[in-house]
């Protein structure tokens, strides 16, 4: 399996990363090395192994439907890059 430069550019676009041509070339090489390494798993016979959904042997961890206090508005927006009247101010999309 080999990742093309175009695929790296596409993934970078989806992740909102602006990469230079040099960086695209570098990440293509690095990502391919990682994928090659992971590919060693394919040497194993996993036909009798169920797909793993989670690494912990746990299931059905629930909480009761009980309301608890939220955080105060001032604290919530304290880390906002831009804030206005208790709202997060964000770039307009549509």
């Amino acid at each position, binding site marked *: 399996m080999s990742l093309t430069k175009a695929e790296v550019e*596409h993934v970078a676009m*989806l992740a*909102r990363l602006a990469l230079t041509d040099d960086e695209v070339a570098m990440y293509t090489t690095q990502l391919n090395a990682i994928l090659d390494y992971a590919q060693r798993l394919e040497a194993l016979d996993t036909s009798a192994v169920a797909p793993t*959904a*989670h*690494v*912990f042997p*746990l*299931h*059905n*961890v*629930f*909480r*009761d*439907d*009980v*309301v*608890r*206090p*939220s*955080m*105060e*508005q001032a604290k*919530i*927006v304290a880390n906002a890059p831009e804030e*206005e*009247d*208790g*709202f*997060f*101010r*964000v*770039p*307009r*999309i*549509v």
Partner: protein
Amino acid sequence: MQEFEFEIVMGLEIHSELATKSKIFCGCTTEFGGEQNTHVCPVCLGLPGVLPVLNRQVVEYAMTAGLALNCTIAEFSKFDRKNYFYPDLPKAYQTSQYDLPIAEKGWVDITTSQGTKRIGITRVHMEEDAGKLVHGGGTLAGAGYSLADYNRTAVPLIEIVSEPDIRSVEEAIAYMEHVKAILEYTGVSDCKMEQGSLRCDANISLRPWGQKEFGVRSELKNMNSFKTLQKALEYEIERQAEILRDGGVVVQETRMWDDAKGVTISLRSKEEAHDYRYFPEPDLVPIIISREWVDRVRAALPELPEARHERLVAAYGLPSYDAGIITDSKAMADYFDAACRHYGIEPSPIADDDGYRQADQQGKDRAKQISNYMMGELTRLVKEDGKGFEDCPISPENLVGLLQLLEAGTISSKIAKTVFETMYATGKEAKVIVEEKGLVQISDEGAIAKIVAEIVDKNPNVVADYKAGKEKAVGFFVGQIMKATKGKANPGVVNQLLKAELDRR
């Protein structure tokens, strides 16, 4: 739809907010509204280091909806991350279910003018809602920005995905109405469309009649009222038909209905829209549902719309159409049942061959009276006020009080109409209004006979008309007598005495 040159193929994705008190993975309230960003905490905001924990009630509600939609509940189910950037999504991914949803392979039967049809349900899965964007600042295009309120973020949702079985706008609306009724009956969601608790997306494509392969589809987003759904679907079908008529190709894309302009507009290119890079949610462990758990939820299912519809027809003899209208809304059906109870309409203790306990003829007549008032005057007044039957100012008990006065002949049907309006406006009992306003029907023959004689005396020329065979003369006299008694004279007695009086002349 046969005359349309293309076959319409649609599937609906219905999103419904669940009626839990707290959010899906944290204890923030799900209450609608509230000052911006006051129902928010580090978990629903997705701050680093937090650990979401699934609300058990979300699983129960999703199972309930799944079972009511005739789905199979998965023994093993898990959450996944759906990754995309949008400012209403603070975590930059939506926690949803991808390949192992909680429920699959169900169906509902819908009724349209074409009859009954089964629509397949592909799946029901659990996920979280997104926040809300308010447009603020500069109104000039490009100069504006948005304001994000995350109160709604992580309110639990179920998404109900139908098979592409829908073939007309009428079917789409009937399907949506039916699913809404099921969600209301099971109490899984309040279905308040005006608050965004229930909304839907539609996949729409057209193909020439007889073609097996689907045409290219567009995905229409976020329709949150029946009116919007109808207008948006009609517009989009015509838009695609025009492209195909001109020999063009429909582009696969996501579109949004713009209500102000009355058009659908393109949102994102397909390339970006569907590249969600799902992967298993590492912060949430899988859900394993035992047979016993499924049985317990199934046993707790209430009577569903279809069963209730059949019961109203069988037990009370309502026409299927009336029963359909009443059972389409849970509030209306509950109102009807409560009114029947207050009226003492007793279903027979012995079930008929189909297992229904029928009311006797008197009970059926009374039930029909209730249904007539509900479907006529009451629906009109409630709709005018933009209310539902759950906030109707006339309680089922008070409606029955009015019908009992009518049945006993204490008031005439004409007076009943006035009393009804006053009841709606004041919430008072019919009996109280009748006493306060002195509206008791006059059935005393002596009193009525006196008024009849006076009026007949005063109008010798109309008597002459009557003698000349003009039937209209009777109507004139009845009108005058009713006017003189302020509508309180018993019409039966009036007719009888008037006839006798005129024949004596």
